[in-house]
């Protein structure tokens, strides 16, 4: 099915199942420990051996020798695979660095060997006995030092009008630089895979967001035809972008299994993950805004510097600034430096998350200079068209409504606009806010449906559920479309033998994957009507029945003993070119800062989101509160601490890399505006899982400024950055 004209009325609009706050259909399995994750496939794989990955101990250079003798002789060892004996390997399209390094080392903790043994304890022990000699080489590790070597990147570059002239002439100006640190996804389930060879075919149970990309890249890495590789990923213990791509756990398991002639399971050891896998790259961002005294922006520029390995890409931190606010004269530019750090790549809301951390502080600073309320300053600069191309409207844009409703519900009028003036006992209190913005991407997605002789529906698609609720919203979609109760729908996900879906990334998963299921359901409805001799256009599917005029039949009867199987894909035309599709929101935060110690606590949080139709308000709300929680981490604690001499992230475990815990998170409120966007897809939905993170960090930063009067422009906002500037504590 091709989606190239805006959606009209369709069966989803009934909203009997879709749009309802239904409990997750996989909830019983997950809460009782019965959902099998990648490393736990004991029913499918008998008697696996265990792989333990060795990571390079230098950031750049060469392995001059590996002494495997002691390890080979250790009890239980079955095989040791290194670059020397692995055979020729390719590199996946989505990978920047090779997943098995050696003799050249491209980054710290790059996998250089896997030791396979009968037991985990034996594999771990033998791995410690491997001796590696290196010839380290110098590298570039520090973004600030490499800033001047960074090259301009065309992607995201834009220039409208005469920015420099308009900025110079503006009555009120801001020119400020902000930094965001390297961050780690730190999902709770480590990257894990079990590989089993069946002749020349390879089956890998793994934990991966994008089955089709990763099956292709695994085949490419192992130089196999893609059809020889099957990936299975039914449950995924979090990804946040860190599991978008093939990673070394899958490659090491496959190579280890080939060498040991046994199924092999590999989970990346937690202390290896942060340097072995990808991370969100640090940025330096310069923002300039020029406005008239009435607050109207006349000039806005956003430039960002980031680094990555040779052949890698930039953190696209300027993207939202092309679209979020009006202004006749504009400039955006990315610059990319070569750094020999672990590979930088997508983490939840890549681009917008760090970009808004900077832009939305800048907006707060500008409002302060103008003597304007920060909410009002944003409202004044709303635009309903793409500022780079005024002929291109937003499909929907309710940013102003989000801001107004949020301000009202949060009690924004209680905020003292003069910073550092509100005190409750030992606490300095303050409120901050930020706009939220994230583009809505649509991706083609396919599904297969089976209607069986009991009138039950089975959906198969290689879509993944990374905690997002895919199982549930896909079941809701099929139930709504076919007119059956949700417990008559079975959803099977995450298997490369199923039709290729959009996968989970870029907050496109919910809308795109359900749209694919919608397309397959339309085809199934036609097949059912045809089989019954009904006119599909006026057939009504409800309560397990199909009715047309005064004729009717049950779905079970229509299916017959053999059932009906259909498959379809939803593909998109140029609606996303003709319309700018984005999601919007507003974040409001109240903080308290200890006047003596500087300890910052988040007291209240509210997000208002305009993100198209909400397919399941319960699971969507969870996406948003989870993202808000990650935003608290980004604002206050998350930072991969870099050893600039040796080129690695030092705090590479969950004790050193701090993420929010229960005690850090207050009650969180989420409001979804009632919206349906017919430009987006037949589901009229958009994404929300990344929107919830966009802007949170800045809202907290702005609240800390409001509480203390201190402006910190370098994340995370730890107390050492403002303690000596706190107001006099009397």
């Amino acid at each position, binding site marked *: 099915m091709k989606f190239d004209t805006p959606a009209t009325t369709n069966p989803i609009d009934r909203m009997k199942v879709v749009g309802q706050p239904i409990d997750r259909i996989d909830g019983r399995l997950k809460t009782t420990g019965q959902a099998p994750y990648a490393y736990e496939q004991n029913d499918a794989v008998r008697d696996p051996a265990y792989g333990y990955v060795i990571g390079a101990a230098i950031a750049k250079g060469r392995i001059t020798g590996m002494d495997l003798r002691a390890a080979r002789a250790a009890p239980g060892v079955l095989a040791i695979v290194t670059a020397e004996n692995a055979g020729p390997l390719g590199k996946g399209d989505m990978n920047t660095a090779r997943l098995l390094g050696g003799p050249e080392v491209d980054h710290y903790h790059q996998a250089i060997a896997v030791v396979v043994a009968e037991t985990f304890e034996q594999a771990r022990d033998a791995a410690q006995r491997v001796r590696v000699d290196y010839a380290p080489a110098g590298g570039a590790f520090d973004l600030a030092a490499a800033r001047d070597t960074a090259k301009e990147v065309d992607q995201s570059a834009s220039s409208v009008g005469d920015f420099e002239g308009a900025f110079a002439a503006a009555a009120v100006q801001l020119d400020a630089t902000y930094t965001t640190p390297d961050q780690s996804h730190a999902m709770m389930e480590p990257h894990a895979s079990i590989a089993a060879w069946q002749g020349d075919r390879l089956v890998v149970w793994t934990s991966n967001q994008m089955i089709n990309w990763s099956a292709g890249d695994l085949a490419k890495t192992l130089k196999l035809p893609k059809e020889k590789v099957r990936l299975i990923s039914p449950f995924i213990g979090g990804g946040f972008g860190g599991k978008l791509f093939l990673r070394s756990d899958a490659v090491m398991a496959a190579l280890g299994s080939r060498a040991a002639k046994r199924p092999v399971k590999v989970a990346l050891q937690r202390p290896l993950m942060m340097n072995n896998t990808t991370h969100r790259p640090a940025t330096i961002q310069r923002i300039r805004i020029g406005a008239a005294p009435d607050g109207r922006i006349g000039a806005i520029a956003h430039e960002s510097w980031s680094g990555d390995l040779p052949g890698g890409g930039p953190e696209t931190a300027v993207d939202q600034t092309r679209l979020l606010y009006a202004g006749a004269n504009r400039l955006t530019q990315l610059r990319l430096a070569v750094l020999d750090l672990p590979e930088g790549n997508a983490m939840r809301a890549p681009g917008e998350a760090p970009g808004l951390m900077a832009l939305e502080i800048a907006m707060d600073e500008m409002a302060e200079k103008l003597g304007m309320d920060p909410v009002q300053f944003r409202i004044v600069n709303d635009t309903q068209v793409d500022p780079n191309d005024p002929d291109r409207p937003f499909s929907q844009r309710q940013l102003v409504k989000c801001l107004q409703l949020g301000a009202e519900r949060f009690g924004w009028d209680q905020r003292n606009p003069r910073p550092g003036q509100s005190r409750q006992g030992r606490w300095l209190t303050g409120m901050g806010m930020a706009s939220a913005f994230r583009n809505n991407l649509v991706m083609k997605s396919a599904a297969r449906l089976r209607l069986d002789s009991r009138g039950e529906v089975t959906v198969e698609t290689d879509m993944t559920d990374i905690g997002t609720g895919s199982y549930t919203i896909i079941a809701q979609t099929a139930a709504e479309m076919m007119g059956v109760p949700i417990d008559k729908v079975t959803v099977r996900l995450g298997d490369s033998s199923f039709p290729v879906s959009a996968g989970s990334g870029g907050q496109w998963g919910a809308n795109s994957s359900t749209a694919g299921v919608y397309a397959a359901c339309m085809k199934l409805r036609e097949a059912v009507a045809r089989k019954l001799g009904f006119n599909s256009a006026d057939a009504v599917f409800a309560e397990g029945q199909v009715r047309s005029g005064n004729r009717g039949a049950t779905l079970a009867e229509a299916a017959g003993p053999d059932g009906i199987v259909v498959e379809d894909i939803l593909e998109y035309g140029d609606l996303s070119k003709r319309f700018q599709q984005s999601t919007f929101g507003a974040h409001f935060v109240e903080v308290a800062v200890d006047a003596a110690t500087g300890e910052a606590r988040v007291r209240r949080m509210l997000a208002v989101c305009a993100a198209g139709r909400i397919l399941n308000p319960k699971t969507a709300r969870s996406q948003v509160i*989870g993202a808000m929680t990650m935003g608290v981490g980004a604002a206050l604690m998350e930072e991969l601490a870099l050893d600039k001499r040796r080129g690695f992230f030092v705090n590479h475990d969950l004790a050193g890399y701090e*993420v929010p815990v229960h005690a850090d998170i207050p009650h969180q409120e989420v409001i979804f505006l009632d919206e349906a966007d017919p430009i987006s897809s037949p589901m009229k939905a958009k994404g929300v899982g990344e929107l919830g993170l966009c802007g949170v960090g800045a809202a907290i930063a702005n609240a800390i400024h409001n509480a203390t009067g201190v402006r910190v422009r370098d994340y995370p906002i730890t107390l050492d950055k403002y303690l000596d500037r706190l107001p006099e504590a009397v």
Partner: protein
Amino acid sequence: MSKVSFSVNGEVRDLELDTRTTLLDALREHLHLTGTKKGCDHGQCGACTVIVDGRRINACLSLAVMHEGDAITTVEGLGSPENLHPMQAAFIKHDGFQCGYCTPGQICSSVAVLEEIKAGIPSHVTADLTAASQVTPEEIRERMSGNICRCGAYSNILDAITEVAERQA
């Protein structure tokens, strides 16, 4: 190798294990009770929380052979999909999870936390050490802070625990 015998979810299990085997790996790899999760293997995340003789511990920080004669409860022992423990049901109702990987640990921890409060065991945020501990949001958040949820379901988990506590009261 060493022999060890303990009960898991009411069933006596006799194992012969490499002495380096953690209680977590004994459960997951030897008994195939994979409900208990391995998030870090270093006592940093709480995903491996199980209840041993009534107290919650990180199973990854404990060797299996140290548990001779102990009574161990894992998430599988609290309830099943057909017969949920009230805490499991409350997590589902309040959507106290997303990816589900921290969830068994959160649930074992929550069940034990309510017992700890009932037993009058104080926490870092207990103001009056001589008075009976209260089930307050602050107490629950403090006591649950060894269980990381990167999906960020904290606000919902608190609602789930509070509901169960209120029903028990």
